[in-house]
């Protein structure tokens, strides 16, 4: 076997391993998209701003999650802001934030569909955004998870 073939075989093997590894990467649980850095509001509540959409991951053994949300800016004409929640691309719930300044802690049961992955992806879609230098959706607090069987 020539040196070039050996290098090609090793490269193919590495590529195959990398693709298999990326099917269910162990660090996916810490990934987010569409969310700003952690901040703290005056009473000491930690939160992150979303944009019009945001995604995060929860462990597959979580049976329910508590999702703290706060609109801050009202919807058009003072209407409530709606956050649509889906898990692994399936709609789960719509959460209405009636009062802009109030934290809403929505308890959401997570579907028990079997998955071979370690994490489920949760996507949020916000019905309106506040447009300025940056796009602001809603505040999300620290997510609570219930893992009871």
């Amino acid at each position, binding site marked *: 076997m020539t040196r070039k073939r050996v290098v090609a075989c090793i490269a193919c093997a590495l590529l195959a391993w990398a693709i298999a590894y990326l099917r269910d990467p162990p660090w996916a649980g810490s990934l987010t998209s*569409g969310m700003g850095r952690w901040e703290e509001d005056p009473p000491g509540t930690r939160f992150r701003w979303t944009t*019009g959409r945001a*995604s995060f991951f929860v462990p597959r053994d979580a049976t329910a999650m508590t999702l703290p949300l706060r609109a801050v800016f009202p919807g058009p004409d003072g209407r409530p802001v709606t956050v649509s929640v889906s898990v692994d691309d399936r709609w789960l719930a719509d959460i209405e934030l009636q009062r802009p300044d109030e934290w809403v802690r929505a308890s959401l049961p997570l579907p028990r569909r079997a998955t071979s992955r370690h994490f489920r992806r949760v996507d949020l879609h916000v019905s309106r*955004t506040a447009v300025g230098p*940056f796009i602001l959706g809603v505040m999300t607090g620290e997510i609570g998870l219930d893992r009871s069987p």
Partner: protein
Amino acid sequence: MTRVVLNRLHVNLTPVIRWGARHVVAIVGVCALAGYCWLFTRPSADEPIRSDGYNYYLYAPSWLIYHDPTLEALAQDWNGGAYPAFSGIVRWPGTNRWMNRLPIGVAVLMLPFVIVADLLTRWSNLPRDGFSLYYQHAAALAGLAYFLAGVAVLRRTLSRYFSPAVTLWTLVAITWGTNLFHYAVYDGTFSHAFSFALVCALVELTDLWWAHPRRWHTAALGLVAGLIVLTRHTNGLLLLLIPGWRVSAWSHVRRRMRELWERRRAVLAMTAIAAAVVAPQIALYKWVTDRWMVNSYAAQGLGFTFLSPHLFGALFSTQRGLFFWSPVLLFAVAGMVVARDWARQVLAPSALVFTLNVWVIASWTEWQYGAGYGHRAFIDSLGLLAVFLAAFFAWTAEHPRLVPYIAGVATLATLLSVVQMIQYWLRVWPVRDTTWEQYRSLFLTFR
């Protein structure tokens, strides 16, 4: 004495220089990846798709994920039907359609990388939103990959006419003695690394096309010419190199006209390919504004002031001066004076293009080109300036007594540029409007 030492050094260093010249692209690649990993694994790191990079990249997810060239669907999904103010993407008066001030070329060049990122995103069950992890790094690594391709092509061109030592010195000086490395690693989603690669390809293909015209040279030159315009419209003036290549005197102009006429089929084919590549952008402008030609920056109140260019500011000032922040490029100017042989033959068109380019860059109302390290508008043409940097190093090699001094100054200028780049990465330098007082007080400080 000096000559004896140098000769001895030359003998000892020759294998090292040859090895370095052969593997310089790999060495630059390893350094670029190391820098990239360091930059984007820091807790305070920004996401790679930001600032102008956001505007350049935006088309790719719009086409690939939202199947919508109008930018409406992405605005709806991400931003509730708007774009953030920093992007300067506005609805065009009259048509009410989204106008992105930056053209589609970078997104076209990024597309293969974004497609791979999209497939991996599906495979890993990450959010298929166009801005999650893989998309971010695919966009930035695309810039890095094109930069390396540019270095590889430039190495090929220089190796044909200069010694391995001159080629190596030139590539090192261009990579690290200027802000090129920064715009490949730190701001890889901006257009400059892409334009650098395209201009290096333009120089190489133009040289091949005039030396040994082949069909694929014609097709490739048309494609590259189109992509240059598609990536940054003002770089279209660099295409003057094609008809002017190796025209070194007025008396050659008539002969060149005759040669172009003799190659009229190839010229037509090249023009047709370039026009086909640029056509989608023209069509987009027409659809958005109802006009074929448009100043996409009109909403920001930006344009050209050709009668009052900021020449000193663009070339020498502490704010953005090309030679202030990349002093090694002064050797390229000297190279234009001492150029010989092939470099002398390509001097006239190169000097013309460089002068026009300086004038255009300095005439832009926002002549500092926003936030950044050094003057980023000149990066695109570094592939051309490298020829004269090499010409200067080649001339220096013929004057052994000068070698230690020039080598010392070039090394210091390159090291200074690297140090200043790291200072920028550590957010020591102001992002624009740097004054002499600020420069002095922050010189070689890292906190």
